[in-house]
């Protein structure tokens, strides 16, 4: 048996073990998060899927729904470094990515050195990201896509896993700067945080108004997350499921031959990143549900979080009061998977 064959067998065995343990670990992370977060199952699953896929999440919800608490709890459950940036109109790019400063070294000499910003972390919470100016918002572009920042002609790699969770408040739109399309496209999912149900609200009140506070334990670490990222990409997807993804993405483009709805209401359709998100998210969702293949249902379930922020509506849609969620549901209803 050669060394390469031995290495292959070892990696296969390791892969089998990882597959076995992945579902259990993800289930453990879910349990730990549920100690602090009541309900919000879809949001928690979406955040975990984005974490395993190596993408970023844009959370949209009213204040007080537990967005910041979710990120903090997740950081504790996966034992990752966590930092938070409160975006304000006077926030500068150097406040996010860091800057070159004159520093005194050990022998008393002063030199220009790089002072890393809060972006150098594993879990970054960009709170109310739409309150910062576009200049500051765009400071995150390189970090989110390339996993690096460039200051003074020097590129600094970010530590993996790097995961950005940005929040924005849909209510107070005055004095905000809507995110540019280029930055929106870099978010894997856009998750809408719903208001809790009645029973969930009772649980929230019980947990937050007593002396006891939940203790969240670490279940996995960053290294295991990176291994999981490699595992989930091996989940097979059948050709007809992939064809369904392609047809969904193509149906959002107004230039398509039979896209009457898209040509009427949509100005720009989804980018190829939308299709990548559907496939990758479908693979992770299948594993989270104990399956080893992507199904049409996985794609269908991820349609809204994956594509709702990648579609730009035209004026007619806004005048008719149509939303991206409505249009996507309608488009998906017209496309049969077979």
């Amino acid at each position, binding site marked *: 048996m050669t060394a390469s064959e031995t290495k292959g067998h070892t990696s296969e065995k390791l*892969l089998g073990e990882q597959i076995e343990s992945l579902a259990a670990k993800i289930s453990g992370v879910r349990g730990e998060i549920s100690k602090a977060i009541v309900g919000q199952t879809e949001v928690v699953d979406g955040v975990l899927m984005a974490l395993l896929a190596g993408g970023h999440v844009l959370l949209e919800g009213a204040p007080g729904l537990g967005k910041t608490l979710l990120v903090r709890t997740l950081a504790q459950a996966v034992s990752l470094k966590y930092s938070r940036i409160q975006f304000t109109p006077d926030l500068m790019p150097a406040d996010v990515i860091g800057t070159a400063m004159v520093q005194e070294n050990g022998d008393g000499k002063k030199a220009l050195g790089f002072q890393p910003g809060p972006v150098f972390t594993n879990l970054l919470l960009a709170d109310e990201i739409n309150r910062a100016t576009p200049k500051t918002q765009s400071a995150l572009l390189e970090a989110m896509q390339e996993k690096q920042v460039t200051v003074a002609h020097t590129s600094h790699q970010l530590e993996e896993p790097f995961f950005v969770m940005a929040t924005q408040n849909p209510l107070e739109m005055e004095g905000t700067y809507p995110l540019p399309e280029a930055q929106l496209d870099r978010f894997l999912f856009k998750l809408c945080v719903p208001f809790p149900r009645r029973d969930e609200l009772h649980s929230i009140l019980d947990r937050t108004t007593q002396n006891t506070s939940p203790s969240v334990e670490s279940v996995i670490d960053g290294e295991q997350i990176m291994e999981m990222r490699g595992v989930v990409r091996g*989940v097979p997807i059948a050709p007809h*499921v992939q064809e369904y993804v392609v047809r969904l993405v193509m149906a959002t483009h107004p230039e398509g031959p039979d896209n009457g709805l898209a040509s009427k209401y949509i100005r720009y359709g989804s980018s190829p990143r939308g299709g990548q998100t559907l496939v990758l998210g479908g693979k992770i969702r299948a594993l989270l549900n104990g*399956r080893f*293949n992507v*199904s049409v249902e996985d794609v269908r379930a991820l349609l809204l979080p994956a594509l709702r922020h990648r579609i730009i509506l035209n004026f007619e849609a806004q005048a008719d009061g149509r939303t991206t969620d409505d249009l996507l549901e309608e488009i998906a209803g017209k496309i049969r998977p077979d």
Partner: protein
Amino acid sequence: MLSTRNVHPTTARVTATFLSTLRSGWETLSARSQGVPSPNSDFFRGNSSEEFQALRHVLGAVRRRMVANTFLRIWTGWWCWILIGLVGAAVFFTKLAGLVMFMSALLGVGAVAIYGWARRTWASPYYAACRLDVVAGLDDRMSTALCFGNAANPNQMLLRQREDALSRVPQIDVASLFPIRTPALAGRALLLALLAAGMFAYRVHHQPPMMALLRASARSHLLQTALTNRDAAEDPREIDSTPKDSLTKTADVDDAAQQDVQGGPASAKADATPAKGESLVESLLETVKGMASGDGGQDQPANGENKQQSAHNDSPPSSDSAQPDPSSGGTQDESQNKSDGQHASSGAGDKLRDPQPMAKNILKSTDPSVKAVPDRVALPSANINDQPRTRSSADTGASQMAVRDVSPRAMAAINGGEQNDIPARYRVYLQRYFEHDDAKKK
């Protein structure tokens, strides 16, 4: 014989290669048309491992049931259309043997074509696996396992997926998931079959019902009343002559012909009878169409109109002319009946609506109230030099001086007094002019 033995293996090999190529090309084409990659279509041919045998049997059963359901559904619809065609033919046509054979051939050809189409539609086991996933709620497990079943070196994830999928195969009950369903059109097809059987049983002893219906409607009191009222409204002088008589007489002739058909001895006479009946039906239909449209044959050509007028003027009433001549053939009867129908429908109305010939006849037949005016008027003098000449550009009311050879007038013409001096030829001309204008107005 020796040469045949030598060539035969080669021919068989070539034929087998050709058929194999044709088959693979067909499967590739059908798989592409369904959006399925072509390698999956030969999944069950040699490369599959033993663990897929159970899935193979299940998918075979699924395919057979889907083909059966598709065939039953489409063929029942096709059968319905065939039965509708048969019933319609039995209602309208006299001879049905050829039609029945043609419809039977259509039924058979349709069955073969539908079966071939259904087999082609459900040719791919991959597509059958997709349907099985949807119906059984397997979340695309079977189709994915089938798709990656031929992978050369499957990794752990593929093996786990295959194991997960195949572990569910024994729980699949194909008969309950894909039952042979009664087609939705089965009830209608049964009703149509009963209707067709009843219609054919009726046709064994009777003529086509539509013909009988038209004959009955031709003799109906309502139609005759309607035709009579219309003619009475158009020409009161011909109320009791044309349509009613012609209809009743033609209907009598038709009755007599029918009696001949049922019990008559002469076969030639019996053969001629349906032609008469059909001509009656055609004439009736044309009459009814004329009533519905209301134009009453206004667009008849002038020659035909003259012929009609001459027929009305020179011959006895049209009822006599509408009687069929027993000595003449069926073709003559048809043409005669057609012309009679046209007379009955449009004869009187044309006379009333075209006033000019009527006016001419009146002018010819009655004495004119004014005297006839000669075409030529004698001039006072044959020599043109002797004719009096006047100035042509004289003002109104001014006296006119003769140029020569005319003695001056005694008095000046004022306020119409000059009419006394109008020359005779002008007076006659004016008289003719006004008489002509009056005649036009009349």
